[in-house]
């Protein structure tokens, strides 16, 4: 049972969590209205990264609840890919990749923002179940069951170094009681694909509601055309690259001969 839950995709886990949240609170309760500044980020040839603004409001159902408006968590996840993690060991004096483990459905991007440290917002088991925070992501080993924890930690460490994973580096700010906003940095090396922005509302350690919005990061302009060309027509692309080189070489020779 536990292993099957583990194997659920993050999206399924997300919606299950919402359902759980709703079933525990039968009566009218607070909910979220959210949006993001842009649903499409174009990676053009001069792309140097961008900031994504995520904002929303808490609709407080019960006015008597007082000043405790709840906590907001914002997660942006990138497309999932299979990742091979290799470990080096010293062989005859030099460092060689000796062990390798393949993980399935590793988010290529993961950013978390919250209005206060997540450990204060919810209990560890809730955070683990929702996979909140890079260190709580669980990756599935593609083949056999092995001791994979150091390999999983390596994924988080490397992705964090590349600025692709971030854990509460930006905060969620409240404007008044109900409006909130946060920014998440999208670095220049961001992988393209289908993203999802998730908003969670917690109150007293319990999940009250959640919202999600799609976000698309696409190559566009010349870069997109080159990329598509290279992958759709590899042989033609290779020939084009050679022709470009031949012309460039001939041009260089012709220009400098005249001098």
């Amino acid at each position, binding site marked *: 049972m536990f292993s099957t839950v583990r194997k659920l995709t993050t999206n399924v886990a997300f919606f299950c969590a919402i359902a759980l949240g709703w079933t525990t609170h039968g009566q009218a309760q607070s909910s979220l209205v959210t949006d993001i500044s842009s649903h499409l980020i174009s990676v053009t040839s001069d*792309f140097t990264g961008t900031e994504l603004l995520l904002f929303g409001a808490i609709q407080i159902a019960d006015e008597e609840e007082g000043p405790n408006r709840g906590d907001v968590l914002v997660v942006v996840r990138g497309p999932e890919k299979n990742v091979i993690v290799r470990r080096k060991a010293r062989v005859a004096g030099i460092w060689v990749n000796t062990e390798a483990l393949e993980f399935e459905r590793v988010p290529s991007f993961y950013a978390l923002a919250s209005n206060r440290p997540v450990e204060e917002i919810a209990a560890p088991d809730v955070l683990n179940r929702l996979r909140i925070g890079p260190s709580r992501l669980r990756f599935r080993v593609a083949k056999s069951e092995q001791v994979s924890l150091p390999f999983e930690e390596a994924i988080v460490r490397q992705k964090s170094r590349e600025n692709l994973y971030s854990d509460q580096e930006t905060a969620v700010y409240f404007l008044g009681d109900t409006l909130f906003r946060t920014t998440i940095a999208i670095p220049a090396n961001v992988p393209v694909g289908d993203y999802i922005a998730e908003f969670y509302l917690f109150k007293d350690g319990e999940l009250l509601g959640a919202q999600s919005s799609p976000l698309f990061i696409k190559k566009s302009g010349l870069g997109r055309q080159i990329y598509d060309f290279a992958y759709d027509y590899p042989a033609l692309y290779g020939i084009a690259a050679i022709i470009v080189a031949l012309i460039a070489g001939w041009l260089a020779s012709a220009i400098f001969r005249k001098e």
Partner: protein
Amino acid sequence: MTVYLPIAEISVNLFLILGMGGAIGLLSGMFGVGGGFLMTPLLIFIGIPPAVSVATVSNQITAASVSGVLAHWRRGNVDFKMGMVLLIGGIVGSVVGTWIFTILKSIGQVDLMISLSYVIFLGTIGILMFIESVNALINTRRGTVKRKKLHQHYWIHGLPFKMRFRKSKLYISALMPLGIGALVGILSAIMGVGGGFVMVPAMIYLLGMPTSVVIGTSLFQIIFVTANVTLLHAISTQTVDIMLALLLMSSSVVGAQIGTRLGTKLRGEQLRGLLALLVIIVCLKLAFDLVITPDDLYSLGEGGH
């Protein structure tokens, strides 16, 4: 100012890439080498994935070699017959090399293979060149230049399939240039180099070709081998970044022209000595990286889908 490289999938500083292309071009013009053996490690160093560096540099070398060959061809310094024989070997070698490269990539050993090949080849050639140029410098100081024998006979001359190469003034077995071509083709595919730094000494010392036709002929062969490597990498690994290649081409040809002019002001032995030192430095850096404990023992690679 940054520019996004669509295949490497990273943004790089435009002036850094142009500067690197110019600097390597300058060196290649001065020393008469393609410069791939310096460019590939440099690109890897600034964060371009090794596989993209290797494939893209091959593409850039095609352009550099075309420009070089045209200059040598005008002076009649290209032995086309020898070039064709080397080329047949080279095409076979580059197919084998790309095949090895693809296998190594899938088992995660390609970075190690690239580094090891560099250390072995740069180390050997750097040291040999250095010794040779130091000896030449000492001999010219003393004023005693050893006379070489006009024709030396090795076991090589006993091989079958003899061919006459008029321009090179040689009558040797076709197996030798075929073998050298094949070896350089393999290196070209694995290391992202034209292979001039292996080919030129091999042509002079193993084949006994006259120095005047060596560079033009080696460049002629390199055009086709690197073009073939570019095509094979484009098809099997999709790692040729045409944007990066164009940036490197445009700045390296300018650098090469300046380098050629600077090169004529320096003496041959001094040039070779300097080049040998450069080769040894690159080799030591790569060897050092293989031996020291890496910051992170783990590395990530793309999994299958």
